[in-house]
């Protein structure tokens, strides 16, 4: 290890309910091997995800309580604390989820200490950046879990079974929001034999839903296409109309899984309390968007509440339910991003690259992400 090696620090995640870790040993090995970096890991960083310190040591990482001190690159799952940021080296770079709207103080700290910070959720959804796309990789975990939890909580069979003791009809599953998580939920529920239908506002969604074998619910509403492949927020009137048209579909469903989101905005309210109440007793609602406002009225993150006999399960850090594999996927995303940052063994982010430009929040004392900058300016810097 020469003195000029870039030091990458992996903190132990401290936020509640976070069981993932930003780099798993395999990813550490990839970075030290390919990019020639030095990796330092806080003790117990991978414990909750099933990776012990010895595993990190074996691939050449230093396990140390001072891992963050003077590190040039911090890679985390959740955003670092302002205190952690201060411990880093001058001009250090951070990579993590960074929901800027909710983390304005942190953004200020990053800007004011001259850190360069990248937000994983801002990686553009373009083909070449898919290897760094943590939103996708974690949404896949969440979608799979959503379907599985629905199947496990529903006091009925998912599949159709014709038996000597009578026929068990298949469960009806409705998925609202057919992005990455929604599609995975559809596919998983279909595997289990449920009758699955789905709705989404994007124009491409119908074909995508059918491409995983489910029925698309045609509502005869105009599509809501945003930028970068995302959806746009619906006006109040259209939202209400959509709820109205969806009501009978919701009422007919045994299990409802919602995943709708619009980037940078609270999750759209797709299902009202009345719509839940109209479902059969014993039905199950899984709201993956519960943390960001909820698609379902009354859903509470991390809780399963009973609404007139219907169980409403609100997701909270769902990927942490499969912490090992979710971490492995996230770590690959991070490692791919790190490889983009490191040129000839040195940290040299090329901010003219579309991908880095897209996900860079602060750099050289400036906030580069326009919406965040505007937010800060509104709040008075």
């Amino acid at each position, binding site marked *: 290890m020469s003195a000029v090696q870039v030091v990458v620090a992996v903190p132990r995640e401290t936020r509640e309910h976070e069981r993932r870790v930003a780099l798993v040993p395999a990813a550490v090995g990839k970075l030290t091997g390919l990019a020639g970096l030095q990796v330092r890991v806080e003790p117990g960083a991978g414990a909750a995800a099933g990776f012990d310190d010895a595993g990190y040591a074996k691939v050449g990482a230093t396990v140390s309580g001072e891992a963050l001190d003077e590190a040039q690159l911090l890679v985390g799952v959740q955003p670092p604390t302002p205190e952690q940021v201060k411990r880093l080296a001058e001009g250090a770079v951070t990579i993590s989820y960074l929901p800027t709207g909710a983390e304005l103080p942190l953004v200020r700290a990053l800007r004011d200490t001259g850190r360069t910070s990248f937000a994983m959720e801002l990686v553009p959804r373009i083909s070449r950046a898919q290897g760094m796309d943590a939103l996708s990789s974690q949404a896949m975990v969440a979608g799979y879990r959503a379907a599985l939890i629905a199947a496990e909580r529903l006091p009925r069979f998912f599949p*159709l079974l014709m038996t000597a003791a009578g026929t068990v009809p298949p469960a009806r599953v409705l998925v609202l929001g057919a992005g990455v998580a929604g599609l995975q939920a559809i596919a998983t529920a279909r595997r289990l*034999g449920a009758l699955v239908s789905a709705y989404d506002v994007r124009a491409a969604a119908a074909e995508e839903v059918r491409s995983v074998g489910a029925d698309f619910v045609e509502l005869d509403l105009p599509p809501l296409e945003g930028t970068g492949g995302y959806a746009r927020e619906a006006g109040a009137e259209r939202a209400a109309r959509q709820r109205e048209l969806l009501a009978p579909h919701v009422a007919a469903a045994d299990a409802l899984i919602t995943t709708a989101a619009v980037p940078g905005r609270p999750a759209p309210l797709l299902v009202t309390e009345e719509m839940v109440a109209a479902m059969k007793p014993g039905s199950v609602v899984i709201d993956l968007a519960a943390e960001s406002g909820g698609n379902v009225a009354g859903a509470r993150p991390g809780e399963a509440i009973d609404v007139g006999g219907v169980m409403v399960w609100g997701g909270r850090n769902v990927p942490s339910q499969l912490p090992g594999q979710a971490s492995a996927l996230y770590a690959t995303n991070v490692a791919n991003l790190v490889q983009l940052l490191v040129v000839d063994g040195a940290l040299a982010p090329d901010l003219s690259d579309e991908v880095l430009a897209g996900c860079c929040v602060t750099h050289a004392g400036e906030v580069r992400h326009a919406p965040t900058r505007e937010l800060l300016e509104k709040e008075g810097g």
Partner: protein
Amino acid sequence: MTGDSGTALAYLLVAVCFIVALKGLSSPRTARVGNAVGAAGAVLAVVVILLVERPDRLLAVLAAMVVGGAVGAVAARRVVMTAMPQMVAVFNGVGGAAGATIAALEMVEGTPDTGRLAVAAFTVLIGAVAFSGSMVAFARLQELMSGRPLIYPGARWVFGLALAATVAAGVWLPWGGPTWLVGALVGLSLGLGVLFVLPVGGADVPIVISLLNAFSGITVAASGYVLENTLLIVAGTLVGASGTLLTRLMAKAMGRPVTNILFGAFAGGSTLGGGAETDRPVRSASAEDVAILLGYARKVIMAPGYGLAVAQAQHALRDLAGELERRGIEVSYAIHPVAGRMPGHMNVLLAEADVPYDKLKEMDSVNPEFKTADVALVVGANDVVNPAARSAPGSPIYGMPILAADEAKSIVFLKRSLRPGFAGIENELLHDPKTTLLFGDAKDSLGKLVTSVKSL
């Protein structure tokens, strides 16, 4: 009498019609049109011969034609479907007789050279054999005669002698044999035909008819040679060649060489005593046959069972259903509640193969449908369609409701053998006259069916 070139051209056209007819007959899609083209050709030929050639004795000829045609037409209209094969035998026989008569008359009254005389003798021989053989075949199919092969001590010597005598007469004739020999040749040949067909087993008679059909084709071709008529040559050869091939194909479909079928009985009477094979007869068929049954049905109900699971043939079954549906055939799946080896076994399999749920019918709702189904396709199932459940008190399945597959117009089983299913009891339905068996692993069989249905 060799017509002018206009007539010859017309005859050529008739020959072309016949070729087109045979072409058409080789696929169910075009068979009827083909037959019609052939008939049109025949009409053209008759018109030419009567109006253009204007034979002597026109009225007598016309009368003979009208009588013969009327007999043929009435017979063809009246015959019941199941008697078709013997009808074909009769038609074939009279055709052979006509050819033989031509040659005999030409020998007696004409002035042919040696070569032509030889061919004429050959024509008489083969035509007479076709005639008498066909008549015996007819008698046996019509049950005017026992269906069992008739074997007597020394049968092969008798046949051998008769053959030798006939051939001798046939050879002597052209090289200066006396005219009465013609009569002897006719008599000997007729006898030969009888001796030829008598020892053939009842089930093999259709193959013999096909062979005799080829014979009468050759008779026609040979008489064409005698009369120097290309149309007869071409038409006769067509029939002779296709009949020969057809005989081979039919024997192949029965899994036996032609010679074994024809001369098996001479080989020591071994087929005489053995009644075991007809003890519990089943009808097995090739994938092509089953494909035609399916491909020309209106409504097919699939009844899958444990064998589908063993063969992991669920994807193949769905493929077949898709192929049938593409042909506009109504297809559904009858799911017996205990099919397979675990509750919902068929559901798991068919869901894996992406069969839409609405195609799966519960037993109670599908059972009334079988009556209107053209084919019940039983894929690796056995107990769940075994009528013993209704009729055999004391059997381990007595009283169990079963799929009413036996009510379908025809039933096809895809299984590997005649072995019973889980309950270990025989299935009468396998021996039903409406039932056809396609032996083999269900996945293989279904694969073949898909291919064959596609090529219909």
